[in-house]
Every structure is written in structure tokens, then in C-alpha cells.
């Protein structure tokens, strides 16, 4: 079989087959782990309601199938999952698939924008800092990076909010759009963009610090290697040296980090989503734990597991592209 397929496809197929037991193990493990937490979703619902009587509680438990033994619940869940049925969220009173899809857009938009900005700006600043190592420019960039790195995201978010919403009144405090304004077309796009400025800034500044520091270290290391000296001796100009010889090799560890962080994209950012009331997956995951909303939480974990597998695969492909010595095997 392998003879007729291009090596990339063979590689992809093998990775896919390896992924199936991993995902199944993750699902079973998570299910059991969640069952170890005290209480179930009925307790959480009743806690939110401010109390209920015994008959009400027993009826809800039977309704949700929580009166069954754990193994029965696990079996029922896994059978459903095999046909990609995520089940019903008792907390949201909607199918889990609907709950997830509602949130996916916001999270993807927020995370993809933040990561792209952070990645681009991070490697640019990191490279500049490294080329002018120990100069005033480098010091300024490094200090900024350190400040962003050390600032907790909740603090940064609240400070942005205090300055731009409360004091200056330029940007909306939170949410994804102006409710009851009924914008359409470009007005709607502009409205959503305005709502995303602060959360994106808060998130990307923190990620930016990671890329900046890593890129700076990586460029400085590569710049001292023999082949860079050789290239320079051949008469390559600084610009060419940077783009062809240094950057390409220095990017490897940065891409690794990007891959790692992209894997967590679906997890969103609990803190930033909560503070800016963005209806994303991070907030949903956190709420699902607190509410013991098993079906929703398992749905999120399933999605995340898939994404991790896919992104790992793509990262490996990218490695091979950046460094021809790496082979797909």
C-alpha cells in the first residue's frame, strides 16, 4: 500500500490511527476524573436556584440519568460519542453541539487574532533586539517584554478597561456587540471589532512577551554559528544573512511554541473571556466544571484533543519545511 501513496499521506494516515486510542483514553480518563469531583450537575443547579425540595432533586437526577452507576453512564456516553453525538447540556438546555458551535466563533476570532499579532510582532521585535543586543533599543524592548510577561492578564484587562472605557469612554466595557442596537453589515463588523480591541490587546501583549524573549535568544544563538560566519565570509549582506540564514533556523523553537499555544486555542482564555464577558470556550469550560456539566465539558475536551492532534501534525510538517534535515517518519 505504502508504495502507491506519497510519503506525506502515509505519514498522515499512521498519525491518524495512532490518534484514535489516545483520544479514547483521554475521554475515559476525563470522564472518570470528573466523576471523582464531589457533587453533580443537579447539586450545582440547585445551588444556583437557591434551594429545592427532595422530590424535585430526585426527579432531576432521574431525568438526567445521574441515578445510574458510573460505568453505565460512561458506556452510554461513549456509545453516543462514537456516532459524534455530544448529547444534551442540562445546564444550557440545548444540545452540546449547539452550545459549542455558538462559542467556537468568538474563541477562534479572539485567539487567532491575538496569536497572529503576538507572533508577528514578537518575532520582529525579538529579531531587532537580538541584532542590536545590549544596545538601548534592546534594553527598551527587553524591559517591555519583561513587563508584559510579568503582568497578570486580569490586571492588564482591568487597567485597559479603566483607562479606555471608564475614564476616556472610547471603547465598550465588554460583550461581543452592542445589544439592542441592531447593527447590520459593516456597522456590525465595526461594532464587533470595537468590542474585540481590548481583549485582543490584553491577550496578545502577554503572548507577545513569550515570542519576543524566545526569538531574541534564538537569533543570538544562531548568529554565532559557523555557517553564519561562512555566509558572511562569502560576502552575503546583512539583510540576506538575516532572512536566509539566521531567521529560518532561529524560527524552529518559536514555531514549536506557536504549535503548543495553538493547541490550546480552543481552551480560550478563561480570565480575559470572563472579564470582558466574551462568550467563548474558555469561559464555557470553566463554567462547565463549576456546574458539573459533564456533557458540555466532555465535548470541549473532545474538540481540544482533536485540535492538539491536528496541530501537532501540522507543526511536524512545518518543521520539515523549515529544516530539510528533518524527515517525516
Amino acid at each position, binding site marked *: 500500500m505504502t508504495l502507491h501513496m506519497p510519503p506525506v499521506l502515509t505519514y498522515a494516515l499512521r498519525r491518524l490511527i495512532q490518534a484514535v486510542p489516545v483520544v479514547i483514553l483521554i475521554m475515559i480518563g476525563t470522564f472518570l476524573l470528573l466523576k471523582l*469531583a*464531589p*457533587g*453533580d*450537575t443537579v*447539586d*450545582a443547579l*440547585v*445551588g*444556583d*436556584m*437557591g*434551594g*429545592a*425540595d*427532595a*422530590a*424535585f*432533586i430526585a*426527579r432531576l437526577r432521574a*431525568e438526567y440519568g445521574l441515578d445510574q452507576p458510573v460505568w453505565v453512564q460512561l458506556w452510554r456516553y461513549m456509545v453516543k460519542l462514537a456516532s459524534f453525538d455530544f448529547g444534551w447540556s442540562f*445546564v*444550557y*438546555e*440545548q444540545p452540546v453541539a449547539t*452550545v459549542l458551535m*455558538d*462559542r467556537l466563533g468568538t474563541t477562534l476570532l479572539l485567539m487567532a487574532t491575538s496569536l497572529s499579532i503576538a507572533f508577528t510582532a514578537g518575532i520582529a521585535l525579538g529579531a531587532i533586539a537580538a541584532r542590536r543586543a545590549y544596545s538601548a533599543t534592546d534594553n527598551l524592548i527587553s524591559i517591555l517584554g519583561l513587563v508584559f510577561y510579568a503582568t497578570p492578564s486580569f490586571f492588564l484587562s*482591568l487597567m485597559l*478597561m*479603566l483607562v479606555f*472605557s*471608564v475614564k476616556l*469612554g472610547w471603547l*465598550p*466595557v*465588554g*460583550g*461581543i456587540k452592542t*445589544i*439592542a442596537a441592531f447593527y447590520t453589515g459593516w456597522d456590525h463588523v465595526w461594532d464587533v471589532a470595537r468590542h474585540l480591541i481590548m481583549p485582543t490587546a490584553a491577550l496578545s501583549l502577554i503572548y507577545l512577551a513569550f515570542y519576543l524573549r524566545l526569538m531574541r535568544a534564538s537569533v543570538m544563538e544562531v548568529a554565532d554559528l559557523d555557517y553564519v560566519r561562512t555566509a558572511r565570509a562569502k560576502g552575503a549582506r546583512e539583510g540576506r544573512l538575516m532572512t536566509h540564514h539566521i531567521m529560518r533556523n532561529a524560527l524552529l523553537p518559536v514555531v514549536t511554541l506557536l504549535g503548543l499555544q495553538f493547541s490550546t486555542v480552543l481552551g480560550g482564555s478563561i480570565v480575559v473571556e*470572563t*472579564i*470582558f*464577558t466574551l*462568550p467563548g470556550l474558555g*469561559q*464555557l469550560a470553566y*463554567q462547565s466544571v*463549576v456546574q*458539573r456539566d459533564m456533557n458540555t465539558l466532555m465535548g470541549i475536551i473532545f474538540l481540544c484533543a482533536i485540535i492538539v492532534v491536528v496541530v501537532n501534525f501540522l507543526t511536524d510538517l512545518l518543521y520539515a519545511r523549515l529544516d530539510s534535515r528533518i524527515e517525516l517518519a
Partner: protein
Amino acid sequence: MTLTMKQVGLTLAMTGALSSVAFAATAQEEVQKGGTAVIHMISEQRILNPGLRASTGVYNITGKIMEPLIDKSYEGYEPVLATEWSGSDDGLTITLKLREGVKWHDGEDFTCDDVAFSAIELWKGLLNYSSALQANLESVDCPDPHTAVFNYSKPMPIELFVAAMPDLGHPVPKHLYEGTDILKNEYNTAPVGTGPFKFVEYERGQYVLAEKNDDYWREGFPYLDRIVWRFIKDKSAAAAALEAGEVHESGFIGVSMADIERLSEDDRFDVGTQGYENNVAHSTVEFNHRNPILADVKVRQAMYHGLDIDYAIDTIMRGFAKPGRGPVPSAGGINYTDEVPTYPYDPELAKQLLDEAGYPVQDDGYRFHLRHRPAPWGEYTQLWAEYYAQAMKEIDIDVEILTNDAPGFLNGVYRDHDFDTANGWHQFRSDPAVSTMVWLRSGQPEGTPWTNQFGWQSDEIDQMIDDAASELDVEKRAGMYHEIQARAMEELPVIFAIEHPFISVTSKKLHNHHNPPRWNSSSWYDLWLEQ
């Protein structure tokens, strides 16, 4: 025996510290129509059917869309969908006259059929708290479309019935619910009611939107065009939204106490407890009486003497509270008394009582050790737990705090009894029979949250609770509750340490706010916004 509203109505005059926060006088100002009021919600209930979920978090939204039969004002009980009510002498039937010419938002008439269906299928069958209240409801007859007759197998005091109706008396439209799986009915999250506002949309985790009902039965109302409820979980972000003018009101202590204190000095806002008289809660200390040390009443009394309640009120509740006087709060009207034994702060006396009870200080410096579970119901409960642990240390009792989330707390205390002491928030719901008595009455089903799962039993008090629940004479019934309060303060099965209404922060742009004693749950037909 026919009781008028006036007789059963409770005069809810606010006293002392609670009334010190004055609200702007709005009566003379000219009403402005239109506008969108934006309301902050700290928690999201997701079910929007008050006939299925009895919770202020539900009423806060649905109160504007679906109306109860009877509501409560500062003057007494107010007719809404029911215009008159009376009980028979034997207490076995209650007759309601229903308002004529009221239409559901989909255009159908509101009639007795809706009330009968809701009472039997939802209030008796499915609604939390109500299923206990309506346990003896046999049937509801409809002699004509605007008369409903409730038949009970055991006497139902009309006072109790009426007191429960504002919360537990929301009819649902029969034509949308009959023959469906009520729990899964789509209208549970897209309510159809008779109220001044019509449901428009619900975006999970974000907001609920309702718009003006042009065919509302109160002529000329409502004033507002729209109401938006925004779910903001982060308290600091909610305070920022208030300050930026994006949100007009935040209720049920939706921002941190530090922000409440700060905003109360900001002249753009009204901050206070008015409008929560009907939603008073107790901060408690609950005992596990299975622990032989705590089973000794002398120990419990000593611990009460060790608590500086006034200090806790000033520092934790910033003065927005009063010392508790047993299971009925001062807002409980006729059923409340303050002639009960009290336990003033006196650590020396506390130590002496503990010595007498046979618990002297041991070699490790403590008399005994307790494991304490605080409920995660917000700022008050956490801080109250910390204060309690600190105060007990003063009288040489070591308290270890076990922090947990909501399911962890409910299971740890009510089902597994894995605690020595616990503290939570417990809301009083208009009448002791449908609220705080379940904390004292023994024989509650095993593991039921917010009931007596403390291993405490008194046949005498059980009997008194049962007698009071079916007593038809209002004065006599009140006398019985006074006696229960006094006994509860003597025996201290639970310390009802502090009673506190909730606190709202309201923009001064809103007018006619917090005018009934359950304002956040009421219909807001007269609320208007300055533009």
C-alpha cells in the same frame, strides 16, 4: 371567613440603619417614555420559567414577562392576575377572581384553565418549594373562565397561600404547555406571559432581551421600550460597566463590597437595600449535632457569645445588615418578634461557659478543633467564615476552613455530613412555613440541601411547626411563630447570626426603581429612564 388584603397585608416599614439610604424622590418629575434599560446579572439561571424554577435569578428576568396572580407592595398584597381572594372557614377551599381582558403575548385569552393547569401540573408537581406548599392541593375548579377554586385535603391558611403567591404563583399558558414534556418545553427558555414586556431573544452567556408589550392590560404602561439583562460574571467588570454608563442597575450584590462602598459616595448612583425587604437572607453558623461537643447546648451558646456580631456587620456587610433574632427576620412582619433570648458579645463569659461544659484548654492551647465548611455564595459567606474562625480562636477553639465549590459544599454538609460547622446564606421567603422552618423540622428527606440535615431533633418544636403551618387564625399563628423563634434562640440548632437584605447599585437615570419590597422580581411596568 373572608380576609381582605389589608388584614393580611404586612406593613414593611424599614427601620434603623436599613432606611438610612435615601432614594431620590421621583414622584413629581415628568415621566419620559422609551429607552432601553440595561440590567447586570451576576448569575445565569438559563431556565426562564418561574413556574418551573423558584429563584430570584429567574424572577429578575421573567418578572417583567410573566406575572404572578398576586404581588406584594409596601402597602400589602397587590392584585395582579387575581383581583380578589378569599378562603372558606374550614380552610379547605380558596377562591380567586381572575382579571378579565388579559391576553397572553401570543394573543390568546388568559383564563382559569391556565391557572388550573399551572397549579396542578407545575406548582404542585414540579416547582421547587411549591410542591411542598401545594402537597395537599386536590384540584382546581373553574366555575367560570374568571373564577378559580383551589380545593385542599387539609386546611390551607389563606395568609400562607397569599404570601407564597408572588413567588410561587406564576401561571403558564396552558395552550403552549398541555400535552408536551413540560421540562423540555421550548417556552421554558423563550417565555410567553402576560407581562408588560415581551420576550425577544436569549443569547446564552451574554444577554436576554425583552421589548414593550403594546397590548398590556395596564393602560399606558410600560414606559420603557426595551430591557436588556447582561450576564457579567466578573464583579470588577460589572462595576466598570456601571461607571461607564453601559449598565443601569446591578442587584443582589453584583459588585464587590469595596465597589459598593465607593459607588455609594458617587452621586450618579443610588446604593441601598430598599426593594429587598422580601429577599432577606441570614448569614448563619450551622452545627453538626452528631459531634458530641456541639450537641451540648452550652457549647453552642458559648460560641454565640464569642461572636462580635456588630463588628462583623460593620466590616463585612459595611453596615447594610442587622443582628439576627432566630429563624424569622425582622422583615417577616406579624410573624416576627424580637422578644427572644440573645447572646451579647462576651468572650470571657464564653470561655467560662466552655469550662463549665467540660472543655478546658488542652496542652496544644485549644479546647477542641472544628472543621468548617463555608458556602461559596459570594463575598459575605467567605468573609463571615473567616471572621468566625478568627473569633473562635479568641475563645480557644481551633477552626479549620475547608474551602469548596457549590456541589462540594452541598454534598459535604447536607449529604455526607462531613463537617463540624458550616455557614451559608439562607433566604427567607415571605412566610416561615415555606422557608426557614425546614431548617428546624426534623425528618427531612436525607440529603436535601437547605433543610435540617444537622442531626438535631426536638419533638416539641416539630409539633409546634406542624401546628403553626395549618393554623388559620392569623394572630394565633403569629403567636406560635414567636414561640418557635424564642425556643430556637434558646436551643440554637442553627445560629441565625445576621440578617441582611441584598444591595443594589442603580443609576440615577432610572426612576421609580425599588418601589415594591421585591422590586428586582417585580414587573417594572412603571420604571422609566431619563434620556
